[in-house]
């Protein structure tokens, strides 16, 4: 975006009153920057809680045989790890970035619905408090996998209603957050900022927000039906009463596949901001990137049954879902091509955000390719429910979504704090993460191809070696993330002062680089005019 602004900011005209003091600031704040910070801190906390659960899983799988936990608890760990990482870590992290950056990028003073913004956040805290508390209910926590398939999930003990209530609260929080983002983008853009002048991060979030509104109610409906099946004698998903357990799978994946894009589209947006800045070039094919994002979002609604090839469906159905899934590779390929073309003959530099963005580009593409492999219905019959699937979606979500979020944090952190972070420590965090994430997940491709099933606490000795390697990678990756906390902590407390532009030449890439660093508590009280 080559937009420039011609008017000063309100902080030039008003006294910049700071926030309230103490705990009250965080409980009652309606400021988008405060709420963004709270979302980011919350997601980091959840990242460590969910990561701790992943380490329980990998510790148990370090060698064959049962060592540390009983199988029921192992299943609880796999289930709650996934729920926390998806709904408590990745999604809130992207919402936190959206809260911080969307108003700054579109020249708005705040989100359009600031009180609802606060409510959305605290609802999320309530949701995950309940979900974590459900681990301590009689009968143990939810253990049927994050997909909550009936009839298995209906065998859950007292944790079931608590977990379902938690999902409803998290869903309501997401929907309110999505409404807020759409309303903000559609109504509070600076004069002159047409839709096709918006930064890519704003575009990807606008499309993500529509996806959220379309599919979160579907998931809420599915778990409501589970609840009534369990407590009120309905038989939506019970064959004995005329229901159909496969109906749940269809409904779940009608939500579940767009959910993948809800996590990855904002990541695309972040990477689309970072690569031009460190290539010192405008983004190649801006319009094509917007249309590719919209195409991916549309296609995400018509591919859900590729998760269900082995459930059984007519050949025509298999063909449709196979081909529609492969079609997603086209707009995704457009994006990868355009990021590469942006770097082509650019004046590249490799600061920490760029390193994470490049790792995203390579490693997300690996996850995308293994996804293409599984889109082929007859091949999926071999891979289904194996560690190959685990490797695939972790490549998409960890060096994909999580690396992009980390790239975004390293990109905007100086703008938030006014300080440059310890770049040596940040680069160490990058290299240790990039190495260990591959040690962790790449061997899982081999395990899956060799036939190791997912969601098992014990395994045949033929799988021992690669499991040990994967577990070593997991502990290395987990420890590496302590560096991330250290970098952020040090940066928040002090460091070399940065200019408003922060990165060389960043000003032409977005309005956020036109406000001082750290960004004042109130920005754009007077809207800038985009030429």
């Amino acid at each position: 975006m080559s937009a420039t602004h011609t008017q000063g900011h309100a902080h030039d005209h008003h006294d910049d009153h700071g926030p309230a003091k103490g705990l009250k600031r965080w409980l009652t704040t309606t400021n988008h920057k405060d709420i963004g910070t709270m979302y980011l801190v919350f997601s980091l906390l959840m990242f460590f809680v969910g990561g701790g659960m992943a380490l329980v899983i990998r510790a148990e799988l370090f060698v064959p045989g049962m060592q540390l936990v009983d199988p029921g608890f192992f299943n609880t760990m796999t289930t709650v790890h996934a729920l926390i990482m998806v709904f408590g870590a990745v999604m809130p992290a992207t919402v936190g970035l959206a809260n911080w950056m969307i108003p700054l990028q579109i020249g708005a003073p705040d989100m359009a619905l600031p009180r609802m913004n606060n409510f959305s956040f605290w609802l999320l805290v309530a949701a995950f408090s309940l979900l974590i508390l459900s681990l301590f209910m009689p009968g143990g926590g939810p253990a049927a996998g994050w997909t909550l398939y009936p009839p298995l999930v209906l065998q859950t003990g007292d944790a079931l209603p608590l977990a379902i209530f938690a999902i409803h609260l998290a869903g309501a929080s997401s929907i309110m957050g999505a409404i807020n983002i759409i309303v903000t983008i559609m109504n509070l853009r600076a004069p002159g900022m047409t839709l096709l002048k918006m930064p890519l991060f704003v575009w990807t979030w606008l499309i993500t927000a529509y996806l959220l509104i379309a599919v979160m109610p579907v998931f809420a409906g599915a778990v409501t039906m589970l609840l009534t099946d369990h407590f009120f004698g309905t038989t939506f998903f019970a064959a004995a009463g005329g229901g159909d357990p496969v109906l749940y799978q269809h409904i779940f994946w009608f939500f579940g596949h767009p959910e993948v894009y809800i996590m990855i589209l904002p990541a695309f947006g972040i990477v689309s901001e970072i690569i031009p800045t460190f290539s010192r070039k405008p983004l190649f094919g801006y319009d094509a990137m917007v249309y590719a994002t919209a195409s991916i979002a549309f296609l995400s609604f018509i591919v859900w049954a590729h998760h269900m090839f082995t459930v059984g469906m007519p050949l025509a159905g298999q063909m449709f879902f196979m081909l529609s899934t492969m079609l997603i590779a086209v707009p995704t390929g457009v994006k990868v091509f355009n990021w590469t073309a942006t770097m082509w003959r650019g004046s590249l530099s490799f600061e920490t955000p760029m390193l994470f963005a490049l790792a995203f580009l390579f490693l997300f593409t690996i996850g995308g390719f293994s996804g293409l492999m599984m889109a082929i219905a007859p091949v999926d019959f071999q891979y289904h429910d194996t560690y190959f699937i685990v490797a695939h979606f972790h490549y998409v979500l960890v060096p994909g979504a999580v690396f992009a979020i980390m790239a975004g944090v390293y990109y905007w952190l100086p703008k938030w704090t006014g300080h440059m972070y310890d770049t040596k420590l940040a680069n160490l965090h990058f290299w240790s993460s990039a190495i260990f994430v591959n040690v962790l997940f790449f061997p899982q491709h081999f395990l899956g191809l060799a036939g190791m099933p997912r969601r098992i606490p014990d395994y045949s000795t033929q799988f021992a070696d690669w499991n040990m390697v994967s577990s070593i990678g997991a502990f290395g990756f987990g420890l590496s993330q302590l560096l991330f906390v250290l970098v952020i902590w040090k940066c928040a407390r002090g460091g070399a002062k940065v200019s408003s532009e922060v990165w060389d030449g960043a000003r032409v890439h977005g309005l956020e680089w036109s406000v001082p660093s750290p960004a004042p508590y109130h920005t754009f009280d007077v809207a800038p005019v985009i030429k």
Partner: protein
Amino acid sequence: MSDPRVSAGPTDEQRRRIRRTTLVLALVALGIYVAFIASGVMQARG
């Protein structure tokens, strides 16, 4: 502005549009929720 910690808000016209868009989006979300449960009811009835 009565509260100095609150930034300058949107104009009246923007507020109207914000209210309208919020209402429409909330109704869409609620409608999808009800529609999917209704489809489950119809499926269960055969």
